[in-house]
């Protein structure tokens, strides 16, 4: 039962990262251009999905609370201010998306809210992961770091890294969904983003070695972990080739695969800990009666239906977004 809920949680988080990742990325790229036609096209590339994507964050949140209450309580309280900012960012970009079409004069406010909200939300997610890798100050199961216990250069670096990663994912999405200027611009950005991301990974790895982070030891103990980076490298090579040959559909899947590999790497380096190296999955799990109660309804029926729904809605909105003739 515990394994089942770990799996559900992992799937929800991964889906969130992949799906909201690309629309947060598009949100950041949105801030780079001022051309209204391009902006509209970028928005319509994510319009039908973004809200559904964010739902996975809420799903992950409540599953975490129901199945692993200790982790929910510890993480959210430890990351009090970051969580606040991320939520404010997500709310702002959500409403900005709808409200920008209702006004001409105030549009710049909503546009700033959209790009800024996306950037803040992405940065904070990366920062939280970084802080976890570096280990939160936790003694006897209690967080002891105070308001800024999560702050470190490494965590900041990871924040920047995830912004780059999401922006790359977003650019690949635009390549996949758009045509004309937007697509060209995205193709132009992809190499820069990819190279910065690579540089970031090298720095992070170097830092982890230099600081002798505990995560590194797990790699020595578990050499099979290297399979994940290998998948990542292959995916990166395929992505590079597909960008060169302008195969619009491919780069997004490859970058998504890189993200999945990175997610798998992290998850297995943490295993069996949920909050590295202080709270294990077994310690965090709710009593069997809670897990079973969730299993027989939402786990067995609603969750698969939600996955199915996600697949269907992406199928309905597949293909390119095309500007129509009656542009006003």
């Amino acid at each position, binding site marked *: 039962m515990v394994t089942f809920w770990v799996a559900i949680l992992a799937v929800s988080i991964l889906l969130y990262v992949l799906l909201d990742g690309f629309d947060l990325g598009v949100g950041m790229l949105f801030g780079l251009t001022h051309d209204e036609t391009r902006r509209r096209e970028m928005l319509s590339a994510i319009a039908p999905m973004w809200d559904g994507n964010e739902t996975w964050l809420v799903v992950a949140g409540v599953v975490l609370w129901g199945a692993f209450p200790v982790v929910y309580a510890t993480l959210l309280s430890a990351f009090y201010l970051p969580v606040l900012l991320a939520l404010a960012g997500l709310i702002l970009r959500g409403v900005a998306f709808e409200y920008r079409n209702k006004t001409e004069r105030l549009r710049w406010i909503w546009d700033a809210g959209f790009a800024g909200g996306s950037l803040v939300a992405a940065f904070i997610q990366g920062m939280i992961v970084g802080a976890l890798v570096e280990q939160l100050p936790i003694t006897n199961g209690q967080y002891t770091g105070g308001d800024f216990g999560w702050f470190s250069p490494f965590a900041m670096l990871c924040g920047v890294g995830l912004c780059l990663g999401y922006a790359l994912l977003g650019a690949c999405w635009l390549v996949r969904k758009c045509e004309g200027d937007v697509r060209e611009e995205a193709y132009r950005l992809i190499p820069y983003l990819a190279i910065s991301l690579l540089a970031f990974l090298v720095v992070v790895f170097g830092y982890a070695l230099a600081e002798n982070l505990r995560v590194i030891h797990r790699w020595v103990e578990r050499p099979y972990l290297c399979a994940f980076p290998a998948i990542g490298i292959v995916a990166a090579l395929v992505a590079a080739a597909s960008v060169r040959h302008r195969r619009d559909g491919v780069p997004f899947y490859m970058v998504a695969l890189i993200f999945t590999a990175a997610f798998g790497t992290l998850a297995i380096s943490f295993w069996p800990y949920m909050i590295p190296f202080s709270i294990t999955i077994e310690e965090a799990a709710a009593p069997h009666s809670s897990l079973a109660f969730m299993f027989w309804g939402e786990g067995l029926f609603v969750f698969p239906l939600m996955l199915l729904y996600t697949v269907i809605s992406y199928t309905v909105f597949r*293909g390119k977004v095309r500007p129509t003739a009656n542009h006003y």
Partner: protein
Amino acid sequence: MDLTALLLSRIQFGSTVAFHIIFPSFTIGLAAWLTVLEALRLWTGRPVYRLIFEFWLKIFGVAFGLGVVSGIVMAFQFGTNWSELSRMSGPIQGPLLSYETFTAFFLEASFFGILLFGRPRVPPWFYFFSTAMVALGTTLSAFWIMVNNSWMQVPTGYVMENGAFAPDDWAKILFSPVVWVRFPHMLLASYLTGAVCVAATGAWYVLRAIFAAEARVMLRMGSYLAAVLLPAQLVFGHLNGEYIVHHQPAKMAAIEARWHDEKPASEVLLAWPDVENHRNLFAITLPPPFGSLIDSDNLSAGEVGLESIPPENWPPVAIPFFSFRIMVGCWAVMLLIAWIGSYLIHKGRFEQNRMLLWATFLSFPLPFIAILSGWVTAEVGRQPWVVYGVLRTADAMTPFLTARTVAVSLAVYCVVYSFIFAFGIYYIYRLLRAGPEGRLVLPPAAAVPNRPMSVVDEHHLTPTAHHVPAGE
């Protein structure tokens, strides 16, 4: 831990929930009303029901969107500010709230989409079925929330395990008698909100002499429904009182500003509770046995006074005392308007009576005030407990939270919320003012179930772009 962080956390939780509760209670009522309209349209075939349906569907979309946005914060706020509570009661509250999310997501995703686009694509009976499913979804959401809150009010079906609440009998938690008086009370409140807002909108159009046919239907249905639901609400409100007397005597004593044990008890109608000296100033009081009659349905029952309860277990007396009276006051005004209105409609004279039309129009905030004050009565009244009788609010807070941190977050929430909700409410106002336009609106192509607010875009994204399936 310092007291101010606790106070600020409570203010933050209270105000974000208060903002949130407005929208779901409105949409639960509206969804039920939409179902009734669709049923009427199927039955009578009159196009006016279709017009009104489309009109309220747009308002439903915006209110629903705002409810979703403000709900995201709720899903995380338990953990950020109340980490001890979420650690201890997570095994019970977590599953309940996850059911809420899953049900809402699922019904929202599948059936709300059909409401928006399905009209030309599905048979009428299925469209009606989808409307009913959306109504069911909002109702189920309310159910899970009320189960969760009722468990905190009267915890049951659990054992303590490693310093946490472990559920040992879900049936007891789900079918607790407390749930089954509080959930209908909330549901009726939502239906009333819908009914009163619909009647008020109708009255507004009659006053402005526009949309005569639609206005008549709204006024008639809203007033009749309110006239029937309000007495029912009294019954459930009273049943709520019974569980409070039984399980939360301190809350009841505070609501009644009853300082000493009385047998039989008197009933304080209005007063200024003087907490320091344990007495009421300027009190207007009904003599015994009215208090016993109202609280216990009994002419001679003894009622507990605050003095027989240790002061550290008292709620702040004045807040539940006044909020309860505000709720009942709103109820009485709505009842008066709804009954006179229904009588005049029956006599065919409502639309000539401008004073009552104005009263009906201006009564639209009353159900919201009643819901908020009723909720304050329930939540402030159960202080100082967060899980009644077991876990104090002060012990439920994140232990290391400082006042400065919470002040920052409270300020951020205030700014963000007032900003987005001011705009949201302005858009609802614009829709209401414009009214049903007498033509059937086709859904814009890019409005999707996950973006309820997009239904009302005037300058929509999609005139510029649409999705072409691959290979075309």
